């Protein structure tokens, strides 16, 4: 059953794939060699995911060919990909939460009868290979994210893999779990499988990869072979990769203010350990702007609710909330913004109890919320940029008078904000949904931070953005805090939290499990310790 092939080369030649308005892959060629970890680096939108979905048979290339061991193959469906031994671990879990580990693994079985005994044996083999322990009868919903990912890897290798593709596997993991993953990858590699590791963090590529290919704008812009990479020092490798990743943006740094210099680029690409970039503030002299006292939220949905959360945010402070995605961040953000009601507890804003106020009252007071779902919640794609910029002020003067919209006032405000925040749009009347993710995020920031913002809740503010916009968004938040604004920053990106926050609280299953003052080295480890302790239950 396990058909592990050795010394195979999967070669992609001139793969081109276009979507309306964008060329996702433009004549990309690369060789994936067995027994090597091939890192695919590039920022969001560089075409990594498209290339992987072509390998996985979920998309068909417009042109170009794929050959395995010299023989051209047509990967026309995910099933064909599995038959060729190509297993993919996607960024987001594809496991059925209500099924056990074993049931999830057997989903792809084609036989009429279930053969649980043989499946359990097979799982044991794989677990040994990966160097992990997996309880076959545990419900996947009960597993921590690190363990879920181990199951995903086992699932990808279930049919005997030739190639294991990991799509941003570290983005949801604690520093400790990333170490475990690295060990598993090394074991898989030793068994002669090829591994493709997709990441946008440079230091991971350097630590885990044997060779590196960099994609930018859908093109293969640089490849560092296995010999070359091993001969480089870490610094040399960094510079080579950065030069390929950023291209002209780096060299033009002196003339173009939007471009980033080498140091910033290295930081954005996650080359080094992150350090704080905000100015220190003295908490004792700063008044408390937001205070939550024992807040438990309630929405009636399936979300994890905020559970007895107590915290304070001072004037001019950025308070980071670290945690694995889906551990009550959304509930916490919404309960502060007024979108979700509190079942118990008190929300104090500048000392005033606002627990019972709605979204619009809080908006007037200066409580703002930049949601993580910018496409469906934060903006309305079918409406114009101008309307999206004033949508939180419906019915208010000067944009509406006696219930009637005042197009000139709306337009003037839109032009002002587009200018101030550098939103790239053909005109204020353009539909917001046609803009890029970065520009949509700028719309949200412009709308929320204008007109008397005093506290802004931001949930995953840079998720899925290109690196230049990431930089810009962080600058905007730092600037906002420096001028006396308060920020409650919820993020799953530890580097981001360390760069921006004065203090970091860790959220797990809706509750805060520990706080760290972010001054000096070691913050990441302390935060990671709280996250691991709370999630994997290994206190």
């Amino acid at each position, binding site marked *: 059953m396990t058909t592990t092939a050795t010394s195979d080369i999967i070669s992609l030649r001139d793969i081109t794939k276009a979507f309306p308005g964008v060329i996702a892959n433009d004549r990309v060629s690369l060789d994936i060699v067995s027994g090597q970890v091939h890192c695919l680096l590039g920022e969001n939108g560089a075409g990594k995911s498209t290339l992987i979905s072509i390998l996985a048979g979920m998309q068909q290339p417009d042109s170009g060919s794929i050959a395995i061991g010299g023989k051209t193959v047509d990967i026309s469906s995910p099933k064909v990909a599995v038959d060729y031994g190509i297993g993919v671990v996607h960024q987001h879990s594809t496991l059925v939460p209500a099924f056990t580990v074993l049931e999830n693994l057997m989903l792809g079985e084609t036989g009429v009868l279930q053969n649980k005994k043989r499946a359990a044996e097979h799982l044991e083999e794989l677990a040994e290979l990966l160097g992990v322990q997996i309880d076959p009868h545990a419900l996947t919903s009960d597993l921590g994210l690190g363990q879920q990912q181990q199951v995903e890897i086992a699932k990808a290798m279930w049919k005997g893999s030739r190639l294991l593709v990991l799509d941003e596997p570290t983005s949801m993991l604690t520093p400790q779990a990333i170490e475990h993953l690295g060990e598993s990858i090394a074991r898989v590699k030793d068994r002669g499988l090829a591994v493709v590791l997709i990441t946008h963090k440079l230091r991971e590529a350097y630590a885990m990869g044997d060779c590196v290919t960099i994609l930018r704008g859908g093109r293969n812009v640089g490849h560092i072979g296995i010999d070359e990479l091993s001969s480089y020092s870490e610094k040399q490798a960094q510079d080579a990769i950065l030069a390929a990743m950023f291209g002209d943006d780096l060299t033009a740094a002196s003339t173009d203010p939007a471009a980033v210099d080498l140091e910033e680029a290295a930081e954005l690409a996650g080359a080094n350990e992150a350090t704080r970039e905000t100015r220190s503030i003295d908490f004792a002299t700063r008044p408390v702007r937001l205070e939550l006292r024992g807040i438990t939220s309630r929405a009636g949905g399936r979300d994890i609710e905020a559970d007895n959360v107590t915290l304070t945010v001072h004037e001019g402070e950025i308070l980071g909330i670290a945690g694995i995605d889906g551990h009550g961040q959304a509930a916490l953000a919404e309960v502060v913004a007024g979108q979700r009601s509190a079942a118990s507890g008190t929300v104090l804003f500048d000392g005033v109890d606002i627990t019972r106020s709605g979204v619009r009252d809080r908006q007037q007071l200066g409580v703002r*919320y930049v949601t993580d779902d910018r496409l469906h*919640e934060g903006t309305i794609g079918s409406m*114009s940029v101008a309307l999206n910029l004033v949508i939180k002020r419906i019915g208010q003067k000067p944009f509406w008078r006696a219930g009637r919209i005042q*197009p000139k006032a709306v337009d003037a405000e839109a*032009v002002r904000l587009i200018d101030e925040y550098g939103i790239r749009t053909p005109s204020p*009347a353009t539909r917001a949904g046609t803009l890029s993710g970065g520009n949509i995020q700028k719309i949200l920031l412009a709308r929320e931070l204008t007109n008397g913002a005093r506290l802004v809740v931001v949930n995953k503010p840079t998720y899925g953005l290109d690196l230049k916009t990431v930089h810009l968004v962080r600058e905007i938040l730092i600037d906002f805090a420096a001028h006396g604004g308060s920020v409650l920053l919820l993020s799953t990106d530890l580097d981001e939290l360390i760069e921006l926050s004065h203090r970091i609280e860790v959220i797990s299953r809706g509750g805060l499990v520990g706080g760290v003052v972010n001054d000096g080295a070691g913050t990441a480890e302390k935060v990671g310790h709280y996250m691991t302790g709370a999630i994997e239950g290994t206190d």
Partner: protein
Amino acid sequence: MTAPDLQNVTGTNGAAQRFAQGFIRSVVPVLLALVVSGLVMLAIGASPLDFFAGVWKYGITGSNWQRSLSLMAPLLIVAVGLIVAFRGQLWNLGYNGQYLLGAVVASGLGPILFQVMPAFLATLVIFIVAVLAGAVWSLIPAILKARYGTNEIITSLVMSFIAVGVVNLLIKGVFKDLGTSTPQTAVIPDNDLLPYIPGTEIHIGFVIAIVLAVVAQFVFSRTSFGLRIDIFGASPKAARHVGLNSTWMVILLFALSSGLIAFAGAIDILGQFSYQRADWDPRYGDAVMPLVFLARFRPVAAIPFVAFYAVLATGGTLAAQQAGLNVDFLLVIVGLILLFMTITEYIGDRRRLGQSYLPAGLKRTVLQPFRRASERNSA
């Protein structure tokens, strides 16, 4: 900033072009439906020319155009009612029951009220009660939707069946005219009915309908309430984000929609029919629904489509008989409009995205044998 941009804040970029596109997308399906229905007529041995000539003759010529315009009144009000709900992405399919409820309020209370108070006052009371009856009837689907997310298509449809039953019970029971043997309500005297527009035989319900459509258009496109409906329709999550109360929004839109449709029923009785028989159900909503989609949920754009259907329905009834067709053939044409509308939309979307008109899967399947063959040849 150029001058045209200033006028275009609400997103009407390239207004003329979009109007042309909307026009093509709306009219093409109707034309195709007429052509294909002609072919269907040929196939079953009827003459399409006779039929369409009959529609023209009985729907427009002489004073027949006035009958068509009278029919427009309830149709257009039902259309506006549907649009209110549909713009908020609430699929109120309980229109038949809601219409009949409004109708039975007029036909049942009318004979009593017109005897005890002035016609003007009685008419006003009937309209208010009819709207309230429709609104109250929609509360159950609305509350279920708002509180528990229950699919409103099913609940409103089921409530419609119940309403039809209740209406028939009322006509056969308390509202029955004891003077006749057939189960029907008492006839409202002609001078108590809605007045005609001077010089015509079109009752003023037509004017009310047109005014309603224009007012609704203004509300939707120019006011903060219209924008709130659009936000709610575009994304309930976004609505919550900007601080709209979605529970209240669902209940309000459902009540407005249902109330308007019931109002159409009352107007139809007081303007046109003057009494109501048991088991009578004109099913206006069934015919109007595709039309409001063609009008892209714009009340003013619905006016020409409703006019078109009113002529088709007024002339078509007699014309169908003359051409040897069943009256139900009209619904075939409506169904064909829906079908071609869907196809036109699909092709339009593909064209906008610059994609092939063929579905991706179909294209692959069709091309597969040829590709295999060419590979074989080259080998």
